[in-house]
């Protein structure tokens, strides 16, 4: 039982790590700026998922606050970048 569960956690972590790698390739290669922002969005969500899988593996509750902070600041970063691409300034005067 526990062997199956630890295999599942390792498999999911490897999958999300590969997804992070693919998003990083799109982040470096993306032809336009909005492609890079989209790849950054997928990238931080995948990083948050890897952190949650570490929380499951070590059974420690300390990772959830970090995951919540990553979700918060990642959203702020993506929104600021998209806003800048839309209006050429983040906060309108």
């Amino acid at each position, binding site marked *: 039982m526990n062997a199956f569960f630890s295999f599942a*956690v390792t498999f999911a*972590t490897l999958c999300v790590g590969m997804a992070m790698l693919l998003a990083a390739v799109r982040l470096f290669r993306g032809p336009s700026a909005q492609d890079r922002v*989209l790849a950054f969005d997928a990238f931080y969500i995948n990083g948050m998922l890897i952190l*949650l899988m570490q929380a499951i593996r070590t059974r420690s509750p300390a990772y959830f606050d970090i995951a919540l902070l990553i*979700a918060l600041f990642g959203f702020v970063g993506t*929104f600021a970048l*998209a806003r800048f691409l839309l209006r050429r300034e983040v906060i309108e005067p």
Partner: protein
Amino acid sequence: MTAFDLPAWAAIPAGLLLMFGGLLVVIGSFGLLRMPNFYARMHPPTMGTTLGTGCVLIASMLVSSAVAGRPVLHELLITLFVVMTTPVSAITLMAAAIARTARRAPDG
């Protein structure tokens, strides 16, 4: 792995949900790499960010509830936040892409 053995009612669904969520996330990022243009690239990662994140968070809730011996629900906070913020950034990014395309080719 650890001193505590998970009971079967938590280990089997959590393991299946984790594997399903990981597969969804990697398929979504593969689509992000392979799709031909930007508007097609918007679609695949949302599969990972909604259903994949939901699966992983439900698995995490199961495991931490089994470890603590009582229902632990504070992963719902992350779920709520991700579900609320993903459409906002997607809409803003899409509007930015449309505005940038119009700025580059005014008659196109």
